[in-house]
């Protein structure tokens, strides 16, 4: 049962082959059994089983939707009423959210069952899940390696079959990179497709929530629930939501795949490159055509991102001041001392680094040279994609330049860490939808992700193109050793 996809479980639940309570219990048992992975920050069996019970009642009454009774692990960045919501930080280590994020609200309304809150890099700042106050998460494919980040807990949970699916958020690759490193299907929707209300902000103009699952079909089922305009989020877009499951099987004959030459140059491990090439060859067999495209400004994506994202973060994280909620330092002499100690003790090193970078980039005298310049670069990067999409339908390339790296390997070298998002970051800057799907394994035995980038609001096509690939390959069905 634990190896079934969401789509399969949905059928099993309706056929009463299993109850939601049984299913939830089975996964809770596995979460407990594999708690060394450190995939979850909070598990609350009582709450989970109560939800499952309600779901069973709905199933019995014939009032079930596709996700009714399906356990979903929620990234701890989403506020969930009554749940500890830490965002991986000490500063929120005592924060029980008094309200539901729109995403949580929608999953609840769909009858899904919250399995728990997954570990993550602190405030989603990281690519390895090592910046979490709650400690690193281990990659089930090799527990000495990282699962990627920042949605590392969600990735490890789904890869290790501790949950059928999970939510993630992606500011610079935080869904796609961990999906690639743990052999999952992860989708970062177009900016504005999924409400950010209740999703604790890292960089508001880049953050986007999305599904992490084992198949494109499952990702589509989750996106059906998550997508849509939200009047509480002024940056969400009033655009009708298609049924993402409807076009999964559409023929992709004649599909034009753009390969950006910049994504296949130095920096890409040869191993990963080979896997990606094999995947492209598979697409050709499915009738797709390959065209070379160019994203000439992609080398600017990382510097641009590491100005804009910290700038926004430095402001977004100001509310964590110890005044109204969250952690407050024990001893302080006055207000300023309270602020300084609370934030010095409450935030980890990477978060502080980014707050400082961001505050610097916005400060008087430097604003034009950094923030404004980065905004200009952002437009150039978006233009590149626009041009590229005039000659192709989907852009493909590696998700991450390497497979999963060892825990601790890059934690002292922030720049090396930042480079692991080199292929994903520009997608956020352009606001486009991006996916990572399992494409094979490198010589080290670790999974490699194929990245697919679509036109604005073209999630349906990405899911369709992914699904067709998954019909003819079985990479996504591989299970990490020891988690059968």
């Amino acid at each position, binding site marked *: 049962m634990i190896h079934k996809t969401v789509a399969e479980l949905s059928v099993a639940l309706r056929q009463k082959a299993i109850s939601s309570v049984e299913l939830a219990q089975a996964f809770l048992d596995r979460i407990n059994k594999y708690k060394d992975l450190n995939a979850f920050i909070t598990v609350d069996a009582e709450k989970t089983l109560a939800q499952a019970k309600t779901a069973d009642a709905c199933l019995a009454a014939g009032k079930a939707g596709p996700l009714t009774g399906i356990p979903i692990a929620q990234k701890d960045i989403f506020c969930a009423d009554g749940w500890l919501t830490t965002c991986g930080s000490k500063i*929120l280590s005592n924060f029980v959210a008094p*309200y539901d994020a729109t995403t949580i609200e929608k999953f609840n309304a769909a009858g899904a069952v919250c399995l728990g809150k997954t570990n993550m890099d602190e405030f989603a700042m990281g690519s390895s899940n090592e910046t979490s106050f709650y400690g690193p998460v281990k990659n089930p494919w090799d527990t000495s390696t990282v699962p990627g980040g920042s949605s590392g807990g969600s990735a490890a949970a789904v890869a290790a079959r501790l949950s059928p699916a999970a939510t993630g958020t992606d500011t610079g690759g935080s869904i796609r990179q961990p999906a690639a490193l743990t052999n999952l299907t992860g989708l970062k929707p177009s900016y504005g497709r999924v409400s950010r*209300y*209740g999703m604790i902000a890292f960089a508001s103009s880049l953050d986007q929530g999305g599904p992490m699952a084992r198949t494109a079909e499952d990702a589509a089922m989750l996106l059906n629930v998550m997508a849509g305009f939200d009047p509480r*989020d*002024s940056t969400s877009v009033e655009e009708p939501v298609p049924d993402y499951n409807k076009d999964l099987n559409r023929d992709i004959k004649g599909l034009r795949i753009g390969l950006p030459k910049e994504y296949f140059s130095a920096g890409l491990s040869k191993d990963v490159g080979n896997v990606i090439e094999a995947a492209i060859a598979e697409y050709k067999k499915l009738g797709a055509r390959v065209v070379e495209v160019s994203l000439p400004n992609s080398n600017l994506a990382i510097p641009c991102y590491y100005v804009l994202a910290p700038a926004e973060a430095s402001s977004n994280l*100001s509310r964590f*001041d110890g005044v*109204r909620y969250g952690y407050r330092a024990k001893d302080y002499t006055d207000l300023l001392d309270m*602020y300084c100690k609370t934030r010095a003790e409450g935030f980890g090193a990477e978060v502080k680094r980014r707050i400082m970078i961001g505050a610097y980039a916005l400060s008087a005298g430097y604003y034009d040279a950094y923030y404004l310049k980065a905004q200009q670069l952002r437009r150039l990067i978006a233009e590149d994609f626009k041009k590229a999409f005039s000659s192709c339908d989907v852009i493909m390339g590696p998700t991450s330049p390497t497979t999963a790296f060892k825990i601790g390997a890059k934690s002292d070298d922030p720049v090396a860490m930042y480079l692991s998002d080199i292929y994903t970051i520009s997608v956020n800057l352009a606001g486009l939808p991006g996916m990572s799907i399992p494409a094979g394994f490198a010589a080290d035995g670790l999974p490699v992700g194929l990245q697919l980038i679509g036109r604005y609001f073209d999630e349906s096509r990405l899911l369709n193109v992914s699904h067709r690939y998954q019909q003819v390959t079985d990479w996504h069905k591989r299970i990490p050793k020891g988690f059968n």
Partner: protein
Amino acid sequence: MEWETVIGLEVHAQLLTKSKAFSGAATKYGAEPNTQACAVDIALPGVLPVFNKEAARMAVKLGLAIGASINHRSVFARKNYFYPDLPKGYQISQYELPIVAKGQLTIDVDGVEKVIGVTRAHLEEDAGKSLHEDFHGKTGIDLNRAGTPLLEIVSEPDMRSAKEAVAYLKKLHELVRYLEICDGNMQEGSFRCDANVSVRPKGEKKLGTRAELKNINSFRFVEKAIEIEVERQIDLLESGGKVVQETRLYDSDKNVTRSMRSKEEAMDYRYFPDPDLPPLVVTEEFIRHVGTTLPELPDAKRLRFMKNYSLNAYDAGVLTGSRELADYYEQVVRESKADPKIAANWVTGELAAFLNRDNKDIAVSPVTVAMMSGLLQRLADNTISGKIAKEVFEAMWSGEGDADDVIAKRGLKQITDTGAIDKAIDEVIAKNPKQLEQYRAGKEALFGFFVGQVMKATQGKANPAQLNELLKKKLST
């Protein structure tokens, strides 16, 4: 040396929207602390702002009223600083692109008109309040006010005296209330003012170093604070000192200004466009629509009153001081069909005095438009004299009914029956033979004495014109 004062004002007008600028919480004043602060106002993790378009409508209204151009696209920015009453750690405000661009206001000081430039007006949110009492050495925070929409109206440094500054402030105060975008309550802080004050040698073109005065929240304090600050700056310069750019707080108890923070200590607010809010777009159609809802503005109303009702500038000014008073007056003229000048005297005289005495607003005046109109009609048709009318007014004020009720109940109807007046005159003449003799001997000043006596005898009810005529006849025969 002769010095010239240069003043620019920044006014924060709290907009009269029902809900806050970026959340659905109510804006009502005076609620229990933190009962009008929702998840967005207290900046819980994950919450997002959604702009209240009503605030834009009000800003556009002001913009049109001061002849300003409206920016079709304006941008919300974040002003970053830490303070316990600022829950997000930043204030949402408009920085580089405000909704209202250059406009102007015409002021009048001692009969001299002057145009004051308005640099800009932008939308922003208010902060909460720190409460320092009742917490035993600790500070309480009330976030009810956090997120209330403000319109900050910034003037050019065009004023040259404290008097001009007050005139500008009063003009703006009158305008925002006319437009019904701000209640103008300075005590509750819905209309607040900071003043940038500097001095320079007369004839000098370059501006002097300015001080920003805060905490001057009444017209009187604005005048006093500016005067005292100008004095301080001149003293400083004349004794060889230098004015430093700083923020100063006005202490109304001691009538001094005190340094709050210098330019060096000024914060770097790290403004940048708020990524949670798309640019605010107001279409030409929206602006045009708002234009159709604009009421007649104070200046236009004043001129119309002078022309249509033949009023002098002073009376027209008083009557148009608020929209409510002007409306009251016009309704009285319409209903009573009385001489507009007489109606004006009653509204600016008796009515204004009583409102003032009892500290009442025109909206809750015990003497309604209908009652005032009735009174003026009885005056016009000679049922009562002007003197009696005052008695009737006071009775109406204290709730004795309308003019006819009071006149009937108190028997105040004017005596117009010639026979009755004749009879009263005869009695008075009979009782005062000595005075009659003196009068007839040429002491004509005694005429007033006889009028007074007859009035006394008729409890003031004799029609004055008739009385005069009849008395003259009787005394001379």
